[in-house]
């Protein structure tokens, strides 16, 4: 098994949240994940809309992405649940179905790529869990995040379908909590932890349902005493940061829940300065919490 990863940034991160891409390029190698040079990837493509429209094209474009990394002897590490899901599902289907593989490779004629079925796809949380390991991760922590009481939202496509994703139990996930606890933070349980962030409902025109999803989850998180929400997917990030602004206004919520992309917290725990974690790009912030995350600031507060 190779331990060299090609970074798959997807569409949403490079176009709307480049600050997360910049962070991944620094923090993943810092925690011990070796990245290759950038490869010529396209959109994954998305499993809900493109995957629902034209299966042949969805399979072929994903197979091309897989082949591009495979040809370099690299695995794929993804920053997005949707990308991970498409690439892992297509990888699984083509790997076990020779006829389908031949057909899809036929669609790649003229691209100079051909999928062989020797590649592995991992979400970055899965790569940290499997390749770095909890104990090793704990040993790398220089600044334990003891002020963090985190609710985690892994997201649907990180864990389902279980038969393909293999990462965690979709109905009772625990690994994301453990990855947060490894950084010295407290993980807070909440009832709606496995429920969808609601972004897909907005994609298909049900804006109200999408807002209700954010409202219900945040209310549940807040009532359970978390002081922030941690995500590992840019779509969930968008829902709980950008869309939260609208939800707070529309439903007159008396609270806000700041969110972090896991790599931001990981960076701080590894000893990177808080101000280098691009948190200033967030719409919802808790500056007191940010100040407490910085060891120097903590001394001043005390």
């Amino acid at each position, binding site marked *: 098994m190779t331990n060299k990863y090609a970074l798959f940034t997807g569409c949403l991160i490079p176009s709307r949240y480049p600050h997360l891409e910049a962070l991944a390029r620094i923090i993943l190698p810092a925690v011990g994940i070796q990245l290759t040079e950038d490869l010529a990837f396209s959109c994954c493509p998305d499993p809900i809309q*493109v995957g*629902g429209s034209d299966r*042949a094209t969805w399979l072929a474009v994903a197979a091309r992405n897989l082949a591009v990394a495979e040809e370099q002897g690299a695995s794929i590490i993804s920053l997005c649940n949707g990308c991970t899901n498409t690439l892992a599902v297509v990888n699984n289907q083509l790997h076990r179905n020779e006829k389908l593989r031949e057909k899809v490779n036929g669609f790649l004629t003229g691209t100079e790529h051909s999928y062989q079925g020797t590649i592995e796809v991992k979400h970055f949380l899965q790569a940290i869990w499997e390749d770095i390991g909890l104990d090793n991760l704990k040993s790398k922590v220089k600044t334990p995040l003891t002020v963090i009481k985190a609710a985690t939202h892994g997201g649907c496509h990180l864990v389902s379908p279980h038969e393909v994703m293999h990462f965690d139990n979709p*109905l009772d996930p625990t690994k994301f909590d453990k990855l947060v606890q490894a950084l010295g933070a407290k993980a807070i349980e909440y009832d709606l932890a*496995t429920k969808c962030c609601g972004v897909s409902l907005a994609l298909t025109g049900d804006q109200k*349902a999408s807002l209700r999803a954010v409202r219900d989850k945040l209310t549940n998180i807040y009532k359970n005493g978390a002081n922030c929400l941690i995500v590992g997917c840019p779509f969930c990030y968008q829902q709980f940061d950008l869309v939260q602004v609208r939800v707070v206004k529309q439903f007159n919520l008396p609270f806000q829940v700041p969110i972090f992309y896991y790599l931001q917290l990981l960076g701080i725990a590894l000893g990177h300065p808080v101000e280098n974690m691009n948190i200033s790009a967030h719409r919802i912030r808790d500056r007191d919490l940010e100040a407490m995350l910085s060891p120097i600031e903590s001394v001043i507060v005390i």
Partner: protein
Amino acid sequence: MPLITLKYSERNVSLEMKEKLGYCFKCAVCASFCPVTLFSEEYATRKENAYDSTYIYDLFIADDEKRVDIAWKCSLCHYCIEVCPQDIKPGEICTAIKEWSFHQHKAPENIYKLMKTLIADGIIFPISTMTKHKREKLRLPPIARPVVELEKIAQNTGLKSFLGEYDKLQEISKKLPPIARPVAELGKIAQDTEA
């Protein structure tokens, strides 16, 4: 609790897409995990614990137009698939309906635009000047996508010609004159004939 009772005409349409649907014993576990049922106003405000008040019930019994409309709400979160004791995979039925509707020119219009963007740009979100500026500031490489190869793939899968046909038909339907009928005169005739 009322159980799902599929009308046979509609049931057959769904069965064609997914033969395993015939094994459904209407336990409603799928519905209790479905985010559309949970968050969509249409379903969340219906009476609780009734399977005929759920998204998945409607998905199975609705007529074509409604079925297509609701199938596109599915986020393929897979929870219905994870919990189904009969391994029916309702989420995959949504995907089958989506794909059928796409090729029947019945999918939402933005889906056709999305597919064109995928092939033309290799990225499904627009790259604004602000994004370019942000990326430069963060010292990130410019976004470059393999558009020539994607066009080749779209040719090979038939998507390119399909989208070309779709555009042509859209153009034709835009040029058609609006339907105007002499309703006032017809009303007069109806009055006269009654008299």
